[in-house]
């Protein structure tokens, strides 16, 4: 384990992390449905591809944070990318008029804020 990796307790997934992971996973499923739905409003569009890729990357980033040992700087980088991903996917969902996906991105954003607050409080408390 590298010296700047997070301690095991901080890496363990908690309900706050799942608050991001759950809507992200649902978002991926919704995006796939939007892309593959026969005769759907955004089926096979580049916009649908974009949200599929964005939500898939979101899931991967969350799994990396939750389940692997990674350096702290990388965690911070991922946390920044995650919030950008969530906001970007939300904006894309708005313009794709896939409002359920937008709703789950709002939940994910709330989860991210909780997650950040949690990490922040533990860091300041240690």
């Amino acid at each position: 384990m590298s010296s700047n990796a997070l301690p095991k307790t901080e890496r363990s997934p908690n309900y706050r992390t799942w608050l991001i992971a759950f809507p992200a996973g649902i978002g991926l499923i919704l995006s796939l449905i939007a892309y593959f739905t026969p005769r759907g409003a955004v089926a096979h569009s580049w916009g649908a591809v974009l949200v599929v890729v964005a939500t898939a990357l979101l899931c991967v980033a969350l799994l990396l944070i939750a389940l692997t040992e990674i350096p702290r700087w990388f965690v911070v980088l991922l946390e920044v990318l995650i919030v950008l991903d969530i906001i970007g996917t939300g904006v894309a969902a708005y313009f794709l008029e896939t409002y359920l996906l937008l709703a789950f991105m709002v939940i994910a954003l709330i989860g991210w804020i909780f997650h950040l607050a949690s990490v922040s409080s533990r860091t300041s408390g240690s």
Partner: protein
Amino acid sequence: MLKAAFLGLVATAALGISQSPAQSQTWSTFNGDLMAQKYSTAAQITPQNVKNLKIAWQVHTGDFSKGKGKIPESYFEATPIFVNNTVYISTPFYRVYALAPDTGKTKWLFDPHATLKPLTQPGMKSRGVAYWQSAKPASSRPCQKIVYVGTMTAQLYAVDADTGKACTDFGKNGVLDIDQWNTAKGTWPLSILQPPTVYKNTLIIGWGGKDWAIGRHAPAGNVFGVDAQTGALKWTFNVLPPEAVANSGTANVWASMSVDPETGIVYLPVSSPSPNYWGGNRKEALPYATSITALNSDTGKVIWSRQLVHHDIWDYDTNSAPVLVDINKNGQKIPALVQSTKQGFLFVLNRKTGAPIYPITEVPVPKSDVPGEQSAPTQPYVAHPEPTVPDKWTGVSWISDLVSGGECSRKLKQLRYDGRFTPPSLQGSLEYPPTIGGVEWGGGAVDPVQQIYVVNSSYTAQIYQLLTRKDYEAKTNGKSAEETKDYYPQTGTPYGVYVHNFFNWLGMACWAPPYGTISAYNLKTGDLIWKKPFGEVQFWGFYLPKAWGSVTIGAPIITKSGLIFIGGSMDSRVRAVDLKTGNVLWKAQVDAPSVAIPATYTYKGKQYVVFSAGGNPLLTPKISDQVVAFALP
């Protein structure tokens, strides 16, 4: 009010269609009725319950092509008609479906095994079928009710409406070859893409073609009156005077027509003469070109005509059937017609005389600077009712300009733009509105009782650039017009032409929104009642802001209950709009943009609204073969 209802009955009677209480509302022609009002007295679906509409049935005809194989791309633009207790619709491959009105189940299918080649159009196209019924049907004889479908190869098929079998007394074994009357044989066929107009026992037939050649290279525009049962020619109306035929062509009638069932006058929307963008060869007076022309439907003789564009070098075809309606103005009831145009003008005329009801003024317009061209010094202009498209273009879209690194602004600086009627030029001219409209071939709809006229309209910009023959050959490498998208040879003239949308390299519109609107006018005063952005642009799946609207093809229909039904938007949605306010009350997703005029009818006490969702590459690449009917649960 009573007269409107009476005329509706007369219009129905003119087609020989009887009505019983059980089947109260038909949709018997492309435009709903002969007067092209696109109005139905059906009132079961109301502004209050329209939100409950559900799909009652849908059919996929199987006739569509993305143009990747041997069959060209399909443009499914057919308006279904409902008559004889059956829904009839043709496909882009010229097959005719007869469908049960309540289930969509196929009663019969007629296949003419037509040639599927893009002989006059870039893709396969049919705008529907026509229907005739004998006033005195002889029982036990077939073909007392006939459905007609035309093809791109100029063949008009007559089919028994009850059985789908060919009517062998019509033409030769049920097929009439319109191309026998082609004045430039061997060039291209007189394509029958629009169903004929049926009035009593006469079929009035126009045709579509290509507008980029002259003389022996292009047929001269003509319209035929033929016997509905035999196909025998009754009369021909030649649009171009004989002395002009060598130097021009077309000025044909490719759009639908309307008929006043009281007087038997047929109204022709006459298109522009060829070639579209260069008139240096055609200096003769062509009074019927780009006009609205009224004929006696028995004889084909001209009753009156009004030219809507002089010396047309913009391809401003008169492109839809005029809507016939009586207007109460200043205490008088005036038999009127409303002709929408690609320029967004609404010409409101007395349909018996052609005299304007609202003023038409001749305004000076920019002069052509192309050697050899003699553009008209003035053009007809209608200020009231307010044109659907503004006189000045909306300017460069800052977003398109920004993301393309200023490409839009740079292009604009190279172009000539002097407002409406800027003539085509060698440097390239910005046209706003251009040939794609304005108002497209569906035209408008009218509520004859309230005398409210509704029309959808696009805000688009194109660039017309004339090319010397040498430059044209260099740009196209000697390829044919079919192979060179946006380049047209204008054979027989010194110039080819390059016509294209004003887009940046990303395919984004360089002009600022809005892109499409829907408007309602009070015909008694000519005043605009409301005007709203219509539809949404969908780009890569993303919907652009509602306030921008969408480029729109297709047309509205109106019901007595105060609803407007319309497809026609890039977002593949169909909508119900409140006639009073213009607010969207209901919308549904369909497979592709519904660019056809919808239809509505009542069968066994239930009202249906039917859309063909076929798409059109002018809007989006999305195409389909879907016919979908909505009804209340």
